[in-house]
Protein backbone atom coordinates (compact mmCIF):
# COMPACT_ATOMS: atom_id res chain seq x y z
CA UNK A 1 0.00 0.00 0.00
CA UNK A 2 3.01 2.29 -0.08
CA UNK A 3 6.26 2.57 -2.03
CA UNK A 4 9.53 4.21 -1.24
CA UNK A 5 13.20 4.46 -2.08
CA UNK A 6 15.69 3.06 0.43
CA UNK A 7 18.85 5.16 0.46
CA UNK A 8 21.51 2.56 -0.18
CA UNK A 9 24.30 3.81 -2.41
CA UNK A 10 26.06 0.46 -2.85
CA UNK A 11 25.00 -3.13 -3.17
CA UNK A 12 26.82 -4.78 -0.33
CA UNK A 13 25.28 -8.20 -0.53
CA UNK A 14 24.36 -10.36 -3.44
CA UNK A 15 20.63 -10.13 -2.95
CA UNK A 16 17.56 -8.58 -4.46
CA UNK A 17 17.17 -4.81 -3.99
CA UNK A 18 13.43 -5.25 -3.56
CA UNK A 19 12.31 -5.14 0.04
CA UNK A 20 8.76 -5.93 1.09
CA UNK A 21 7.83 -5.26 4.69
CA UNK A 22 4.28 -5.14 6.06
CA UNK A 23 2.80 -4.55 2.65
CA UNK A 24 5.19 -1.69 1.90
CA UNK A 25 7.46 -1.91 -1.09
CA UNK A 26 10.97 -0.54 -0.92
CA UNK A 27 13.60 -0.34 -3.63
CA UNK A 28 17.25 0.08 -2.71
CA UNK A 29 18.55 3.20 -4.41
CA UNK A 30 21.69 1.62 -5.89
CA UNK A 31 19.71 -0.41 -8.39
CA UNK A 32 17.71 2.47 -9.84
CA UNK A 33 20.48 3.65 -12.12
CA UNK A 34 20.55 0.21 -13.70
CA UNK A 35 16.89 -0.59 -13.61
CA UNK A 36 15.39 2.63 -14.88
CA UNK A 37 17.44 3.01 -18.08
CA UNK A 38 16.91 -0.70 -18.79
CA UNK A 39 13.11 -0.62 -18.61
CA UNK A 40 12.95 2.82 -20.17
CA UNK A 41 15.00 1.67 -23.12
CA UNK A 42 12.89 -1.43 -23.59
CA UNK A 43 9.71 0.61 -23.74
CA UNK A 44 11.16 3.17 -26.12
CA UNK A 45 12.32 0.40 -28.47
CA UNK A 46 8.85 -1.09 -28.36
CA UNK A 47 7.30 2.28 -29.21
CA UNK A 48 9.70 2.70 -32.09
CA UNK A 49 8.63 -0.74 -33.30
CA UNK A 50 12.16 -2.02 -33.08
CA UNK A 51 11.44 -4.61 -30.41
CA UNK A 52 8.22 -6.41 -29.72
CA UNK A 53 6.86 -6.87 -26.24
CA UNK A 54 3.86 -8.99 -25.40
CA UNK A 55 1.02 -7.71 -23.26
CA UNK A 56 2.24 -9.16 -19.98
CA UNK A 57 5.71 -7.75 -20.52
CA UNK A 58 4.22 -4.37 -21.33
CA UNK A 59 2.16 -4.40 -18.16
CA UNK A 60 5.20 -5.31 -16.06
CA UNK A 61 7.54 -2.85 -17.68
CA UNK A 62 5.17 0.10 -17.51
CA UNK A 63 4.35 -0.75 -13.92
CA UNK A 64 8.03 -0.73 -12.97
CA UNK A 65 8.67 2.47 -14.88
CA UNK A 66 5.75 4.31 -13.35
CA UNK A 67 6.66 3.35 -9.81
CA UNK A 68 10.09 4.85 -10.45
CA UNK A 69 8.89 7.86 -12.43
CA UNK A 70 5.12 8.35 -12.69
CA UNK A 71 5.47 11.43 -14.86
CA UNK A 72 6.57 9.32 -17.80
CA UNK A 73 3.51 9.99 -19.95
CA UNK A 74 4.38 7.41 -22.59
CA UNK A 75 4.14 4.60 -20.06
CA UNK A 76 0.65 5.72 -18.99
CA UNK A 77 -0.33 5.97 -22.64
CA UNK A 78 0.78 2.40 -23.32
CA UNK A 79 -1.48 1.35 -20.47
CA UNK A 80 -4.33 3.38 -21.98
CA UNK A 81 -3.95 1.32 -25.15
CA UNK A 82 -3.99 -1.90 -23.13
CA UNK A 83 -7.14 -0.82 -21.33
CA UNK A 84 -8.88 0.14 -24.57
CA UNK A 85 -8.01 -3.21 -26.13
CA UNK A 86 -9.51 -4.98 -23.14
CA UNK A 87 -6.28 -6.56 -21.94
CA UNK A 88 -5.86 -4.51 -18.80
CA UNK A 89 -8.40 -3.93 -16.08
CA UNK A 90 -8.74 -0.17 -15.49
CA UNK A 91 -9.06 -0.74 -11.77
CA UNK A 92 -5.46 -1.94 -11.79
CA UNK A 93 -4.40 1.50 -12.95
CA UNK A 94 -6.30 3.13 -10.13
CA UNK A 95 -4.35 0.95 -7.74
CA UNK A 96 -1.03 1.61 -9.48
CA UNK A 97 -1.71 5.34 -9.43
CA UNK A 98 -2.59 5.24 -5.76
CA UNK A 99 0.70 3.50 -5.05
CA UNK A 100 2.71 5.94 -7.15
CA UNK A 101 1.07 8.83 -5.30
CA UNK A 102 2.38 7.58 -1.96
CA UNK A 103 5.83 8.55 -3.15
CA UNK A 104 4.97 11.22 -5.71
CA UNK A 105 1.87 12.94 -4.31
CA UNK A 106 1.93 15.75 -6.86
CA UNK A 107 2.66 13.77 -10.02
CA UNK A 108 0.54 15.60 -12.63
CA UNK A 109 0.56 12.72 -15.13
CA UNK A 110 -0.72 10.30 -12.51
CA UNK A 111 -3.71 12.50 -11.71
CA UNK A 112 -4.41 13.13 -15.40
CA UNK A 113 -4.32 9.40 -16.20
CA UNK A 114 -6.53 8.74 -13.20
CA UNK A 115 -9.21 11.04 -14.60
CA UNK A 116 -8.99 9.29 -17.95
CA UNK A 117 -9.47 5.92 -16.26
CA UNK A 118 -12.43 7.18 -14.22
CA UNK A 119 -14.02 8.54 -17.38
CA UNK A 120 -13.63 5.10 -18.97
CA UNK A 121 -15.25 3.50 -15.94
CA UNK A 122 -18.26 5.83 -15.97
CA UNK A 123 -18.80 5.10 -19.65
CA UNK A 124 -18.53 1.40 -19.02
CA UNK A 125 -21.26 1.66 -16.44
CA UNK A 126 -23.86 0.40 -18.84
CA UNK A 127 -21.58 -2.36 -20.21
CA UNK A 128 -20.77 -5.28 -17.91
CA UNK A 129 -17.55 -6.66 -19.57
CA UNK A 130 -14.42 -5.74 -17.65
CA UNK A 131 -16.32 -4.13 -14.84
CA UNK A 132 -17.46 -7.41 -13.36
CA UNK A 133 -13.87 -8.61 -13.14
CA UNK A 134 -13.14 -5.90 -10.63
CA UNK A 135 -15.23 -7.04 -7.74
CA UNK A 136 -17.14 -3.85 -7.24
CA UNK A 137 -20.12 -5.72 -8.65
CA UNK A 138 -23.21 -4.01 -7.25
CA UNK A 139 -25.56 -1.53 -8.82
CA UNK A 140 -24.13 1.35 -10.86
CA UNK A 141 -25.10 3.95 -8.30
CA UNK A 142 -23.43 2.02 -5.52
CA UNK A 143 -20.34 1.48 -7.70
CA UNK A 144 -20.04 5.16 -8.44
CA UNK A 145 -20.48 6.00 -4.79
CA UNK A 146 -17.67 3.65 -3.82
CA UNK A 147 -15.44 5.06 -6.54
CA UNK A 148 -16.10 8.56 -5.24
CA UNK A 149 -15.27 7.57 -1.68
CA UNK A 150 -12.06 5.92 -2.77
CA UNK A 151 -11.05 9.02 -4.71
CA UNK A 152 -11.74 11.18 -1.67
CA UNK A 153 -9.37 8.95 0.32
CA UNK A 154 -6.64 9.03 -2.30
CA UNK A 155 -6.87 12.83 -2.50
CA UNK A 156 -6.83 13.18 1.23
CA UNK A 157 -3.71 11.08 1.61
CA UNK A 158 -1.91 12.89 -1.19
CA UNK A 159 -2.91 16.23 0.31
CA UNK A 160 -1.35 15.15 3.58
CA UNK A 161 1.89 14.22 1.87
CA UNK A 162 2.57 17.59 0.29
CA UNK A 163 1.49 21.04 1.52
CA UNK A 164 -1.11 22.85 -0.56
CA UNK A 165 -1.22 20.02 -3.08
CA UNK A 166 -2.93 21.80 -5.99
CA UNK A 167 -3.23 18.66 -8.11
CA UNK A 168 -4.74 16.52 -5.37
CA UNK A 169 -7.37 19.08 -4.41
CA UNK A 170 -8.16 19.90 -8.06
CA UNK A 171 -8.73 16.20 -8.66
CA UNK A 172 -11.02 16.06 -5.65
CA UNK A 173 -13.14 18.88 -7.10
CA UNK A 174 -13.18 17.18 -10.50
CA UNK A 175 -14.42 13.93 -8.98
CA UNK A 176 -17.30 15.67 -7.23
CA UNK A 177 -18.22 17.53 -10.40
CA UNK A 178 -18.06 14.56 -12.75
CA UNK A 179 -18.73 11.48 -10.59
CA UNK A 180 -20.48 12.86 -7.56
CA UNK A 181 -22.77 15.14 -9.55
CA UNK A 182 -22.54 17.69 -6.74
CA UNK A 183 -25.50 16.30 -4.82
CA UNK A 184 -26.32 17.99 -1.55
CA UNK A 185 -25.52 14.83 0.38
CA UNK A 186 -22.04 14.54 -1.12
CA UNK A 187 -21.34 18.24 -0.52
CA UNK A 188 -22.43 18.09 3.12
CA UNK A 189 -20.51 14.88 3.74
CA UNK A 190 -17.37 16.42 2.34
CA UNK A 191 -17.88 19.58 4.38
CA UNK A 192 -17.96 17.61 7.59
CA UNK A 193 -15.21 15.15 6.71
CA UNK A 194 -12.69 17.85 5.75
CA UNK A 195 -13.37 20.10 8.74
CA UNK A 196 -10.88 18.33 10.98
CA UNK A 197 -8.28 18.11 8.23
CA UNK A 198 -8.21 21.83 7.51
CA UNK A 199 -7.99 22.60 11.21
CA UNK A 200 -4.80 20.56 11.24
CA UNK A 201 -3.47 22.27 8.11
CA UNK A 202 -4.18 25.96 8.63
CA UNK A 203 -1.85 27.19 5.91
CA UNK A 204 -3.20 24.85 3.31
CA UNK A 205 -4.86 27.30 0.96
CA UNK A 206 -5.95 24.49 -1.35
CA UNK A 207 -7.82 22.78 1.49
CA UNK A 208 -9.71 25.92 2.37
CA UNK A 209 -10.37 26.67 -1.28
CA UNK A 210 -12.01 23.25 -1.44
CA UNK A 211 -14.37 24.26 1.35
CA UNK A 212 -15.23 27.43 -0.57
CA UNK A 213 -16.00 25.24 -3.56
CA UNK A 214 -18.29 23.07 -1.40
CA UNK A 215 -20.09 26.06 0.13
CA UNK A 216 -20.55 27.78 -3.22
CA UNK A 217 -21.83 24.57 -4.78
CA UNK A 218 -24.31 24.26 -1.92
CA UNK A 219 -25.47 27.83 -2.45
CA UNK A 220 -25.84 27.19 -6.17
CA UNK A 221 -27.69 23.98 -5.45
CA UNK A 222 -30.16 25.64 -3.09
CA UNK A 223 -30.93 28.41 -5.54
CA UNK A 224 -31.36 25.97 -8.43
CA UNK A 225 -33.52 23.61 -6.42
CA UNK A 226 -35.78 26.34 -5.15
CA UNK A 227 -36.14 27.57 -8.72
CA UNK A 228 -36.91 24.05 -9.88
CA UNK A 229 -39.46 23.70 -7.08
CA UNK A 230 -41.17 26.91 -8.11
CA UNK A 231 -41.12 25.86 -11.76
CA UNK A 232 -42.62 22.49 -10.88
CA UNK A 233 -45.36 24.18 -8.93
CA UNK A 234 -46.15 26.41 -11.89
CA UNK A 235 -46.19 23.44 -14.23
CA UNK A 236 -48.40 21.49 -11.86
CA UNK A 237 -50.89 24.29 -11.65
CA UNK A 238 -51.02 24.67 -15.40
CA UNK A 239 -51.11 21.05 -16.48
CA UNK A 240 -52.33 18.79 -13.72
CA UNK A 241 -53.31 16.10 -16.19
CA UNK A 242 -49.80 15.79 -17.57
CA UNK A 243 -48.18 15.00 -14.29
CA UNK A 244 -47.22 11.47 -13.41
CA UNK A 245 -48.06 11.68 -9.77
CA UNK A 246 -45.29 9.55 -8.38
CA UNK A 247 -42.65 11.32 -10.36
CA UNK A 248 -43.70 14.78 -9.37
CA UNK A 249 -44.20 13.85 -5.76
CA UNK A 250 -40.78 12.24 -5.67
CA UNK A 251 -39.09 15.15 -7.36
CA UNK A 252 -40.79 17.64 -5.11
CA UNK A 253 -39.94 15.68 -2.04
CA UNK A 254 -36.30 15.60 -3.14
CA UNK A 255 -36.38 19.31 -3.77
CA UNK A 256 -38.04 19.96 -0.48
CA UNK A 257 -35.45 17.89 1.30
CA UNK A 258 -32.62 19.67 -0.44
CA UNK A 259 -34.35 22.97 0.16
CA UNK A 260 -34.05 22.34 3.85
CA UNK A 261 -30.25 22.70 3.71
CA UNK A 262 -29.63 25.21 6.43
CA UNK A 263 -27.26 27.42 4.50
CA UNK A 264 -27.10 30.22 7.06
CA UNK A 265 -26.09 27.71 9.70
CA UNK A 266 -23.34 26.20 7.53
CA UNK A 267 -21.94 29.60 6.64
CA UNK A 268 -22.11 30.65 10.27
CA UNK A 269 -20.28 27.50 11.33
CA UNK A 270 -17.66 28.19 8.69
CA UNK A 271 -17.14 31.70 10.02
CA UNK A 272 -16.90 30.32 13.55
CA UNK A 273 -14.32 27.81 12.39
CA UNK A 274 -12.28 30.65 10.86
CA UNK A 275 -12.51 32.76 13.96
CA UNK A 276 -11.39 29.87 16.15
CA UNK A 277 -8.45 29.05 13.91
CA UNK A 278 -7.39 32.67 13.48
CA UNK A 279 -7.33 32.99 17.25
CA UNK A 280 -5.37 29.79 17.77
CA UNK A 281 -2.94 30.20 14.89
CA UNK A 282 -1.98 33.83 14.33
CA UNK A 283 -0.55 35.00 11.05
CA UNK A 284 -2.03 32.67 8.43
CA UNK A 285 -3.23 34.59 5.44
CA UNK A 286 -5.32 31.68 4.20
CA UNK A 287 -7.59 31.86 7.22
CA UNK A 288 -8.30 35.57 6.75
CA UNK A 289 -8.85 35.02 3.04
CA UNK A 290 -11.29 32.23 3.79
CA UNK A 291 -13.06 34.34 6.39
CA UNK A 292 -13.43 37.25 3.92
CA UNK A 293 -14.99 35.06 1.33
CA UNK A 294 -17.34 33.21 3.69
CA UNK A 295 -18.76 36.51 4.83
CA UNK A 296 -19.04 37.52 1.19
CA UNK A 297 -20.99 34.32 0.47
CA UNK A 298 -23.44 34.98 3.27
CA UNK A 299 -24.04 38.51 2.11
CA UNK A 300 -24.80 37.54 -1.46
CA UNK A 301 -26.66 34.34 -0.84
CA UNK A 302 -30.38 34.98 -1.18
CA UNK A 303 -31.28 32.68 1.66
CA UNK A 304 -29.17 34.26 4.35
CA UNK A 305 -28.13 37.25 6.33
CA UNK A 306 -29.97 40.14 7.93
CA UNK A 307 -27.61 42.39 5.99
CA UNK A 308 -29.29 41.35 2.76
CA UNK A 309 -32.47 43.19 3.62
CA UNK A 310 -30.77 46.15 5.20
CA UNK A 311 -28.46 46.70 2.26
CA UNK A 312 -30.71 45.69 -0.62
CA UNK A 313 -27.92 46.38 -3.07
CA UNK A 314 -28.05 43.14 -4.96
CA UNK A 315 -30.50 42.52 -7.73
CA UNK A 316 -30.41 38.92 -6.54
CA UNK A 317 -31.46 39.93 -3.07
CA UNK A 318 -34.25 42.10 -4.35
CA UNK A 319 -35.85 39.36 -6.36
CA UNK A 320 -35.65 36.81 -3.58
CA UNK A 321 -35.95 39.08 -0.60
CA UNK A 322 -39.32 37.64 0.28
CA UNK A 323 -37.80 34.21 0.58
CA UNK A 324 -34.87 35.67 2.49
CA UNK A 325 -37.19 37.41 4.91
CA UNK A 326 -39.12 34.25 5.61
CA UNK A 327 -35.92 32.32 6.22
CA UNK A 328 -34.65 35.12 8.39
CA UNK A 329 -37.73 35.31 10.59
CA UNK A 330 -37.58 31.56 11.03
CA UNK A 331 -34.00 31.91 12.16
CA UNK A 332 -34.84 34.67 14.58
CA UNK A 333 -37.68 32.66 16.03
CA UNK A 334 -35.48 29.61 16.43
CA UNK A 335 -32.91 31.21 18.70
CA UNK A 336 -31.65 34.68 19.61
CA UNK A 337 -28.60 34.14 17.44
CA UNK A 338 -28.72 37.14 15.15
CA UNK A 339 -26.00 38.82 17.13
CA UNK A 340 -23.54 36.00 16.58
CA UNK A 341 -23.27 36.69 12.89
CA UNK A 342 -22.77 40.00 11.17
CA UNK A 343 -20.41 42.91 10.63
CA UNK A 344 -20.63 44.16 14.21
CA UNK A 345 -19.35 40.79 15.37
CA UNK A 346 -16.55 40.91 12.84
CA UNK A 347 -15.47 44.39 13.96
CA UNK A 348 -15.42 43.28 17.58
CA UNK A 349 -13.37 40.26 16.58
CA UNK A 350 -10.86 42.37 14.64
CA UNK A 351 -10.49 44.84 17.52
CA UNK A 352 -9.86 41.96 19.88
CA UNK A 353 -7.25 40.46 17.55
CA UNK A 354 -5.49 43.81 17.07
CA UNK A 355 -5.36 44.54 20.77
CA UNK A 356 -4.09 41.13 21.83
CA UNK A 357 -1.94 39.81 19.01
CA UNK A 358 1.82 40.01 18.96
CA UNK A 359 2.34 38.62 15.45
CA UNK A 360 3.10 41.27 12.84
CA UNK A 361 1.48 39.32 10.00
CA UNK A 362 -1.66 38.76 12.06
CA UNK A 363 -1.95 42.49 12.71
CA UNK A 364 -1.46 43.22 9.03
CA UNK A 365 -4.16 40.76 7.98
CA UNK A 366 -6.56 42.05 10.63
CA UNK A 367 -6.09 45.63 9.49
CA UNK A 368 -6.58 44.68 5.85
CA UNK A 369 -9.73 42.74 6.75
CA UNK A 370 -11.14 45.72 8.61
CA UNK A 371 -10.41 47.97 5.61
CA UNK A 372 -12.18 45.48 3.38
CA UNK A 373 -15.18 45.33 5.67
CA UNK A 374 -15.46 49.11 5.71
CA UNK A 375 -15.19 49.39 1.93
CA UNK A 376 -17.37 46.42 1.23
CA UNK A 377 -20.13 47.11 3.73
CA UNK A 378 -19.83 50.87 3.63
CA UNK A 379 -20.11 51.16 7.38
Amino acid at each position, binding site marked *: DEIGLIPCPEARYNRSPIVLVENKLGVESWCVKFLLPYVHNKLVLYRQRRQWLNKDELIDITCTLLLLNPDFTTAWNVRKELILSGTLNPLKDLHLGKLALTKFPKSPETW*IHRRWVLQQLIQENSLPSLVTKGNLGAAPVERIHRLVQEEMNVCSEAAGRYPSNYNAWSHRIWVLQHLGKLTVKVLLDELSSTKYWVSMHVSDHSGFHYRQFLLKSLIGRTVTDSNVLVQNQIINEQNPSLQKEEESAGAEAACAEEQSVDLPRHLEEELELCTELIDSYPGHETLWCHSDETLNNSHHSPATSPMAQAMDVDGLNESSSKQGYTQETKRLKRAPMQDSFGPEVEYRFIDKVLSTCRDADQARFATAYRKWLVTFLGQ
Partner: protein
Amino acid sequence: MHVGGEVDVRSAYCAASVASLTNILTPALFAGTAEWIARCQNWEGGIGGVPGMEAHGGYTFCGMAALVILKKEHLLNLRSLLRWVTSRQMCFEGGFQGRCNKLVDGCYSFWQAGLLPLLHRALHARGDTALSMERWMFHQLALQEYILLCCQCPAGGLLDKPGKSRDFYHTCYCLSGLAIAQHFGSGDLHHEVVLGGPENRLQATHPVYNITPEKVARAVMHFLQQPVPSLEPA
Protein backbone atom coordinates in the same frame (compact mmCIF):
# COMPACT_ATOMS: atom_id res chain seq x y z
CA MET B 1 -2.21 20.10 -24.18
CA HIS B 2 -1.84 17.24 -26.66
CA VAL B 3 -4.10 14.63 -28.25
CA GLY B 4 -5.73 12.70 -25.40
CA GLY B 5 -4.06 14.99 -22.89
CA GLU B 6 -5.33 17.28 -20.17
CA VAL B 7 -7.34 20.43 -20.83
CA ASP B 8 -6.46 23.59 -19.00
CA VAL B 9 -5.79 27.28 -19.46
CA ARG B 10 -2.18 26.75 -20.55
CA SER B 11 -3.14 25.17 -23.82
CA ALA B 12 -5.41 28.11 -24.63
CA TYR B 13 -2.44 30.42 -24.19
CA CYS B 14 -0.12 28.20 -26.25
CA ALA B 15 -2.67 28.03 -29.03
CA ALA B 16 -3.40 31.77 -29.00
CA SER B 17 0.27 32.63 -28.87
CA VAL B 18 1.20 30.41 -31.81
CA ALA B 19 -1.86 31.27 -33.88
CA SER B 20 -1.43 35.01 -33.50
CA LEU B 21 2.29 34.99 -34.33
CA THR B 22 1.81 32.77 -37.37
CA ASN B 23 -1.22 34.65 -38.63
CA ILE B 24 -3.64 31.71 -38.55
CA LEU B 25 -5.89 33.16 -35.85
CA THR B 26 -9.56 33.09 -36.84
CA PRO B 27 -12.68 33.67 -34.75
CA ALA B 28 -13.80 30.12 -35.52
CA LEU B 29 -10.59 28.68 -34.11
CA PHE B 30 -11.22 30.30 -30.76
CA ALA B 31 -14.99 30.26 -30.62
CA GLY B 32 -16.00 30.15 -26.98
CA THR B 33 -12.39 30.13 -25.72
CA ALA B 34 -12.44 33.61 -24.21
CA GLU B 35 -15.65 32.87 -22.32
CA TRP B 36 -14.20 29.59 -21.03
CA ILE B 37 -11.07 31.33 -19.79
CA ALA B 38 -13.19 33.94 -18.02
CA ARG B 39 -14.95 31.12 -16.19
CA CYS B 40 -11.58 30.08 -14.81
CA GLN B 41 -11.39 33.29 -12.81
CA ASN B 42 -12.64 32.56 -9.32
CA TRP B 43 -13.65 34.36 -6.15
CA GLU B 44 -10.01 34.99 -5.22
CA GLY B 45 -9.58 37.18 -8.30
CA GLY B 46 -6.90 35.01 -9.86
CA ILE B 47 -7.36 32.30 -12.48
CA GLY B 48 -7.26 28.53 -12.01
CA GLY B 49 -6.39 25.71 -14.40
CA VAL B 50 -10.00 24.96 -15.26
CA PRO B 51 -13.26 26.50 -13.99
CA GLY B 52 -13.66 25.87 -10.26
CA MET B 53 -9.99 25.46 -9.46
CA GLU B 54 -7.83 27.46 -7.08
CA ALA B 55 -6.24 30.67 -8.42
CA HIS B 56 -2.63 30.04 -9.46
CA GLY B 57 0.10 32.35 -10.82
CA GLY B 58 1.04 30.26 -13.83
CA TYR B 59 -2.52 29.69 -14.97
CA THR B 60 -3.43 33.31 -14.30
CA PHE B 61 -0.71 34.56 -16.59
CA CYS B 62 -1.73 32.13 -19.31
CA GLY B 63 -5.38 33.10 -19.01
CA MET B 64 -4.79 36.83 -19.03
CA ALA B 65 -2.23 36.74 -21.86
CA ALA B 66 -4.51 34.56 -23.97
CA LEU B 67 -7.37 37.01 -23.46
CA VAL B 68 -5.13 39.92 -24.38
CA ILE B 69 -4.28 38.14 -27.64
CA LEU B 70 -7.98 37.47 -28.26
CA LYS B 71 -8.75 41.07 -27.31
CA LYS B 72 -11.26 39.93 -24.71
CA GLU B 73 -9.50 40.82 -21.45
CA HIS B 74 -12.53 42.82 -20.37
CA LEU B 75 -14.45 39.60 -19.80
CA LEU B 76 -12.43 39.33 -16.59
CA ASN B 77 -13.02 41.21 -13.38
CA LEU B 78 -9.81 43.23 -13.73
CA ARG B 79 -10.16 44.88 -10.36
CA SER B 80 -10.26 41.63 -8.39
CA LEU B 81 -7.46 40.23 -10.54
CA LEU B 82 -5.35 43.28 -9.75
CA ARG B 83 -6.06 42.88 -6.05
CA TRP B 84 -5.13 39.21 -6.15
CA VAL B 85 -1.85 39.56 -8.01
CA THR B 86 -0.59 42.55 -6.05
CA SER B 87 -1.25 40.58 -2.85
CA ARG B 88 1.09 37.90 -4.14
CA GLN B 89 4.25 40.01 -3.80
CA MET B 90 5.86 38.98 -0.52
CA CYS B 91 6.48 41.95 1.75
CA PHE B 92 9.60 40.41 3.29
CA GLU B 93 11.24 38.64 0.36
CA GLY B 94 10.22 41.00 -2.44
CA GLY B 95 9.60 38.11 -4.80
CA PHE B 96 6.21 36.63 -5.64
CA GLN B 97 4.34 33.56 -4.40
CA GLY B 98 2.28 31.43 -6.75
CA ARG B 99 -0.79 31.20 -4.51
CA CYS B 100 -1.99 32.58 -1.21
CA ASN B 101 -0.05 31.38 1.82
CA LYS B 102 2.65 29.62 -0.19
CA LEU B 103 6.37 30.33 -0.31
CA VAL B 104 8.12 32.75 -2.66
CA ASP B 105 9.49 31.28 -5.89
CA GLY B 106 11.73 32.96 -8.47
CA CYS B 107 9.73 31.76 -11.45
CA TYR B 108 6.70 33.74 -10.32
CA SER B 109 8.80 36.83 -10.92
CA PHE B 110 7.49 36.42 -14.43
CA TRP B 111 4.14 34.66 -14.10
CA GLN B 112 2.86 37.08 -11.47
CA ALA B 113 4.78 40.31 -12.08
CA GLY B 114 4.21 39.82 -15.80
CA LEU B 115 0.49 40.29 -15.19
CA LEU B 116 0.96 43.91 -14.21
CA PRO B 117 2.01 45.21 -17.62
CA LEU B 118 -1.00 43.37 -19.09
CA LEU B 119 -3.35 44.82 -16.50
CA HIS B 120 -1.87 48.28 -16.92
CA ARG B 121 -2.55 48.16 -20.64
CA ALA B 122 -6.08 46.82 -20.20
CA LEU B 123 -7.02 49.42 -17.58
CA HIS B 124 -5.48 52.17 -19.66
CA ALA B 125 -7.54 51.08 -22.66
CA ARG B 126 -10.60 51.37 -20.45
CA GLY B 127 -9.78 55.00 -19.74
CA ASP B 128 -8.48 54.65 -16.20
CA THR B 129 -6.89 57.98 -15.26
CA ALA B 130 -5.18 56.91 -12.04
CA LEU B 131 -2.51 54.84 -13.78
CA SER B 132 1.14 55.78 -13.38
CA MET B 133 3.11 56.75 -16.44
CA GLU B 134 6.39 55.56 -14.97
CA ARG B 135 5.97 52.35 -13.06
CA TRP B 136 4.01 49.13 -12.89
CA MET B 137 1.73 48.44 -9.94
CA PHE B 138 4.20 46.27 -8.08
CA HIS B 139 7.45 47.02 -6.23
CA GLN B 140 9.93 46.75 -9.08
CA LEU B 141 13.08 47.30 -7.02
CA ALA B 142 12.12 44.75 -4.37
CA LEU B 143 11.59 42.10 -7.04
CA GLN B 144 14.93 42.88 -8.63
CA GLU B 145 16.59 42.56 -5.22
CA TYR B 146 15.04 39.18 -4.65
CA ILE B 147 16.14 37.86 -8.02
CA LEU B 148 19.67 39.26 -7.94
CA LEU B 149 20.42 38.56 -4.28
CA CYS B 150 18.56 35.29 -3.67
CA CYS B 151 18.02 33.55 -6.97
CA GLN B 152 21.47 33.33 -8.49
CA CYS B 153 23.53 30.15 -8.45
CA PRO B 154 27.23 30.87 -7.89
CA ALA B 155 28.05 28.44 -10.69
CA GLY B 156 25.73 30.27 -13.07
CA GLY B 157 22.02 30.00 -13.77
CA LEU B 158 19.08 30.96 -11.58
CA LEU B 159 16.74 29.19 -9.20
CA ASP B 160 13.54 29.13 -7.17
CA LYS B 161 14.88 30.24 -3.78
CA PRO B 162 18.12 29.87 -1.82
CA GLY B 163 18.86 26.22 -1.19
CA LYS B 164 17.30 24.97 -4.40
CA SER B 165 19.32 23.82 -7.38
CA ARG B 166 19.43 25.64 -10.69
CA ASP B 167 17.48 24.60 -13.77
CA PHE B 168 16.65 26.07 -17.17
CA TYR B 169 13.04 26.78 -16.30
CA HIS B 170 13.92 28.95 -13.31
CA THR B 171 16.77 30.57 -15.20
CA CYS B 172 14.37 31.56 -17.96
CA TYR B 173 11.62 32.91 -15.73
CA CYS B 174 13.83 34.68 -13.19
CA LEU B 175 15.48 36.53 -16.07
CA SER B 176 12.13 37.25 -17.69
CA GLY B 177 10.84 38.64 -14.40
CA LEU B 178 13.96 40.74 -14.03
CA ALA B 179 13.37 42.22 -17.47
CA ILE B 180 9.74 43.03 -16.58
CA ALA B 181 10.84 44.70 -13.35
CA GLN B 182 13.45 46.84 -15.09
CA HIS B 183 11.38 48.20 -17.97
CA PHE B 184 8.16 50.17 -17.89
CA GLY B 185 6.21 50.86 -21.06
CA SER B 186 7.69 51.18 -24.51
CA GLY B 187 8.57 53.78 -27.11
CA ASP B 188 8.00 57.33 -25.83
CA LEU B 189 6.74 56.10 -22.49
CA HIS B 190 9.65 53.79 -21.82
CA HIS B 191 11.08 54.22 -18.33
CA GLU B 192 13.91 52.14 -16.86
CA VAL B 193 14.61 51.24 -13.26
CA VAL B 194 17.75 49.14 -12.94
CA LEU B 195 18.96 48.00 -9.54
CA GLY B 196 22.72 48.05 -9.21
CA GLY B 197 25.11 48.85 -12.05
CA PRO B 198 24.37 49.01 -15.79
CA GLU B 199 25.78 45.48 -16.17
CA ASN B 200 22.54 44.28 -14.51
CA ARG B 201 20.41 45.71 -17.28
CA LEU B 202 18.53 43.26 -19.45
CA GLN B 203 16.72 43.89 -22.71
CA ALA B 204 13.00 44.44 -22.37
CA THR B 205 10.76 41.44 -22.99
CA HIS B 206 7.33 41.44 -24.63
CA PRO B 207 4.80 40.97 -21.81
CA VAL B 208 2.50 38.72 -23.85
CA TYR B 209 4.92 36.43 -25.65
CA ASN B 210 7.99 36.77 -23.44
CA ILE B 211 10.41 37.13 -26.33
CA THR B 212 11.94 40.47 -27.26
CA PRO B 213 9.55 42.93 -28.94
CA GLU B 214 11.78 42.96 -32.02
CA LYS B 215 11.38 39.22 -32.42
CA VAL B 216 7.62 39.52 -32.08
CA ALA B 217 7.56 42.14 -34.82
CA ARG B 218 9.80 40.06 -37.09
CA ALA B 219 7.74 36.92 -36.58
CA VAL B 220 4.50 38.72 -37.31
CA MET B 221 5.96 40.36 -40.41
CA HIS B 222 7.36 37.09 -41.67
CA PHE B 223 4.07 35.21 -41.40
CA LEU B 224 2.02 38.07 -42.79
CA GLN B 225 4.00 37.63 -45.99
CA GLN B 226 3.25 33.91 -46.18
CA PRO B 227 0.08 32.59 -47.77
CA VAL B 228 -2.45 31.62 -45.14
CA PRO B 229 -2.92 27.83 -45.21
CA SER B 230 -6.41 26.69 -46.17
CA LEU B 231 -8.46 24.45 -43.92
CA GLU B 232 -9.07 21.84 -46.62
CA PRO B 233 -6.72 18.84 -46.50
CA ALA B 234 -4.20 18.74 -49.37
